[in-house]
């Protein structure tokens, strides 16, 4: 088949459908990954031993366990104990686990780097511990964690491709199916690569702008 015809009538439409799924996966997982990451970091840093210890275990497990295995557990493993998730939902949950664990590490580092005096001054004004964390410590920590969290977001873009391994046909999956059918691997994967590189590059630029926007003189 003519490469041009293949590209325009078969590959691009298929990849477009896949891209939509990829974007949906990312857009669903990222906000929860961020919120859970903040929660885990705050719990580990300021929580009692009964909160911080289990959270530490959670982070160690997620960081040590390959994401693909985590997805297998969620999609192939959970039905054996009666929990059935759609491929999309299993993927999103896996991504949230992964994203939140890594984000929490960056946020926790940033929380610990906020000078002790900030908490003391906040409490001296009558803020409760939670108010001090919420209004004084976290805003400073999150700014500092932006580069790390950007990295994690980029990882999320890339790791979203693993959803295909549990049958959620996203960008990579859509391409793989077409490539196998028409036996045009080089063409297909070069186009897929271009799409990922575009997503990653745009994210990097946007994150730099975000960091500048929130920057505070130091």
């Amino acid at each position, binding site marked *: 088949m003519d490469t041009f015809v293949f590209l325009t009538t078969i590959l691009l439409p298929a990849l477009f459908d896949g891209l939509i799924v990829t974007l949906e996966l990312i857009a669903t997982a990222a906000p929860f990954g961020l919120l859970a990451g903040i929660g885990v970091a705050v719990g580990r840093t300021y929580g009692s031993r009964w909160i911080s210890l289990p959270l530490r275990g959670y982070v*160690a*497990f997620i*960081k*040590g*366990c*390959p*994401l*693909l*295995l*985590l997805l*297998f*557990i969620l999609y*192939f*493993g*959970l*039905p*054996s*104990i009666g929990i059935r998730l759609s491929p999309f939902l299993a993927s999103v949950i896996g991504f949230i686990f992964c994203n939140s664990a890594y984000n929490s590490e960056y946020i926790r580092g940033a929380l610990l780097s906020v000078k002790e005096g900030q908490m003391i001054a906040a409490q001296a004004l009558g803020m409760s511990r939670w108010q001090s964390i919420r209004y004084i410590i976290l805003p400073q920590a999150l700014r500092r964690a932006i580069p790390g969290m950007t990295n994690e977001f980029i990882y999320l873009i*890339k*790791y*979203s*491709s*693993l959803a*295909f*391994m549990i049958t959620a046909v996203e960008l*990579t999956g859509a*391409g*793989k199916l077409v*490539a196998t059918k028409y036996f045009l*691997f*080089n063409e*297909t*994967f*070069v186009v*897929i*690569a271009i799409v*990922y*590189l575009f997503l*990653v*590059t745009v994210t990097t630029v946007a994150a730099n702008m975000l960091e500048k926007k929130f920057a505070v003189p130091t």
Partner: protein
Amino acid sequence: MDIIIILLDWIPYLFLGLLQTLGLVLASLAVGLIFGLPMALGQIYGNRLIKSVISVYVWFFRGLPVIVLLFLFFFGIFPSLNMSSVPPFVVAVVVLGLRGAAYQSQIFRGAIQSISEGQMTAARSLGMTRFQAIRHVILPQALRIALPGWSNEYPTVLTDTAICYAIGVQELLTRATYMVAQTYITMPIYLAIAGVYILLNYAGMKALNMLEKKTSIPGFGQGAL
């Protein structure tokens, strides 16, 4: 009880997968090191052409999912070069290695750039060539500074090896999945395998920490980077 006996039967099979996983990790860390360090030097000391070629390389390999790289090389590039018969394991080493080189080069680059100008100046003032200065003064310092960051590559590569399942490398996860399909035992196997990965992760980090301690020089490198 039955489950345990069944699982015991499979241990030799899984053990071979473990060896493949470790092989992938070591080979790709090594390939990454062999290519990553010269790339870092090229990106700092090279001419414009070298610098931009390396930048594009890094951008490419860091911007793509492992699975896309694996598919591209396994189904696309290798067959195009009439190397369809190359085993998946080798393709995986090539992909993880080339990708590792991209990441490692940036770790080394940061470390080298953190060494003060004065070190190069002092070395040159002693009559060393640029190459000698890099070899005997800059690198010994930079490699020590890079070690913690380099150590962090280990858990990343370890967990990435599982993705090689996608092209049928007979590593730990692939074999675990086969075992699940044969035995219909799912959760116990997956959780046990997760435990193995976490253990490997832990043991590897311990070993690398020891290496850091062993190579450290009193008062040097604290807080650098």
